[in-house]
């Protein structure tokens, strides 16, 4: 028995979108599919949307996140709902817990509670982690989940969005939709899933030191207030892109911040860390930036963004080996859309081509999760994370 997926993109108000999604699922599946990923814009409040979906698909595990943009293999859409239904020979379970900001380990423990770690006959385990990045503990959540899953840990996922409002994001497991929360789902399959991750950024500034920080809030860089420092460092390049950093209001600065992200000196590589918001003269990141960290400012080109998206898809595809691709979930950083503009559709279609045209559904995230064997970090920014599912005929 194979694994099969179908992708959907619907719009309208939450009740209409939910009805259209359910109708689409019913047309293509004889029974409730085992698993449904749902990613929704702020135009379809997640709680209302998922409640209506679950009322009709009570047998389906629904994992959801609010989004900053939605897409399928057919292209990019805004203000919509993208979804991937998956059915076939695999097992899945899910849990959700709030309190990520105050007790990240407790939240991960509660979200994982009661889920089977081993299922006979299904030796491959992949966890999906969806989380609220505004809680500020995304890297911690990914690493703790890996500690708790043990040496078999392979994790993919993403940080929810809210159409660049940076006010409140949501994740959901079935009817439960929460902020300041994490969703952990465990997928047990007979053959491995493929997880590909790539970013297309490179540093252009010299390295500077974070001299004061409070968790994910960077307060001072090189002894100066963080935002004025950052603003000075990006002024010239931002002007070339049409931004006047001195005239931009903090609430409008997110588009600027997501073009000029932080690169953490991580030894042999640069670890990109996304600034998400300006708070006074401080900058809020999606995870803790330790005092003493050395940061450089990064930027990417349009070509670099497309190339890295394709590379992530090819990497995920390769891990499936000889299996045909059943489908994929794509967690794609919102910065890619900002940088690519009207070329974002090219990147989506290129991902689809690299996955042999299989159904894909994805959303634009405020951060991505990928952690496989040998990896030493689980939270990423400016990347595409592609979770590819093999069909495994027979």
């Amino acid at each position: 028995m194979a694994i099969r997926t179908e992708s959907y993109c619907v719009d309208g108000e939450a009740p209409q979108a939910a009805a259209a999604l359910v109708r689409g699922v019913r047309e293509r599946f004889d029974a409730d599919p085992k698993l449904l990923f749902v990613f929704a814009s702020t135009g379809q409040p997640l709680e209302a949307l998922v409640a209506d979906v679950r009322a009709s698909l009570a047998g389906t595990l629904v994992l959801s996140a609010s989004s900053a943009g939605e897409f399928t293999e057919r292209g990019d859409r805004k203000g919509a709902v993208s979804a991937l239904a998956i059915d076939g020979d695999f097992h899945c379970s899910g849990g959700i817990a709030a309190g990520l900001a105050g007790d990240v380990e407790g939240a991960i423990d509660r979200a994982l509670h009661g889920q089977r770690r081993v299922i006979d006959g299904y030796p491959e385990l992949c966890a999906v982690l969806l989380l609220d990045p505004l809680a500020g503990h995304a890297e911690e959540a990914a690493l703790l989940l890996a500690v708790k899953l043990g040496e078999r840990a392979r994790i993919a996922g993403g940080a929810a969005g809210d159409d660049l409002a940076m006010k409140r994001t949501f994740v959901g497991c079935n009817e439960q939709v929460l902020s300041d929360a994490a969703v952990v789902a465990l997928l047990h399959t007979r053959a491995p899933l493929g997880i590909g991750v790539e970013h297309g950024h490179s540093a252009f500034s010299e390295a500077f030191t974070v001299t004061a920080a409070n968790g994910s809030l960077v307060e001072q860089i090189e002894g100066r207030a963080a935002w004025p420092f950052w603003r000075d460092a990006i002024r010239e390049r931002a002007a070339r892109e049409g931004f006047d950093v001195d005239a931009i209001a903090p609430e409008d600065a997110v588009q600027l911040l997501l073009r000029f992200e932080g690169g953490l000196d991580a030894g042999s590589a640069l670890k990109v860390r996304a600034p998400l918001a300006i708070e006074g003269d401080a900058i809020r990141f999606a995870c803790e930036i330790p005092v003493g960290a050395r940061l450089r400012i990064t930027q990417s080109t349009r070509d670099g963004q497309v190339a890295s998206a394709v590379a992530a898809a090819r990497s995920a595809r390769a891990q499936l080996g000889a299996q045909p691709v059943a489908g994929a979930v794509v967690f794609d950083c919102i910065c890619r859309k900002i940088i690519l503009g009207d070329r974002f559709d090219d990147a989506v279609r290129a991902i689809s081509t690299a996955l042999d045209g299989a159904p894909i559904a994805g959303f634009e995230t405020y951060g991505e999760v990928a952690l496989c064997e040998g990896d030493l970090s689980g939270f990423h920014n400016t990347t595409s994370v592609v979770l590819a599912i093999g069909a495994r005929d027979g």
Partner: protein
Amino acid sequence: MAESGHTLEQDADGSQGRVTRGELVELLSAAVGKSAAEAAVERGCAAVAFGAHGSLAHAQRVLEAVAREPGLVGITARFAKARLALRSA
């Protein structure tokens, strides 16, 4: 992630393998950055009298010391301890 090799010599405490400070820094750097990793390893090594290199068991004690620190550094050390154990398995 490339393997950082270490020889599997038997040490006085019965554990195998020698781990350098550099390898400990490498284990933490990807998540917290190199400078924070270096500082954390320095503190951890001082806490358990770890020199330039030591046995696997001694290296694990460094990471245990760092794991007691709050926030991302401590959590990363817990994760790194598990990764270090896997490398030597």
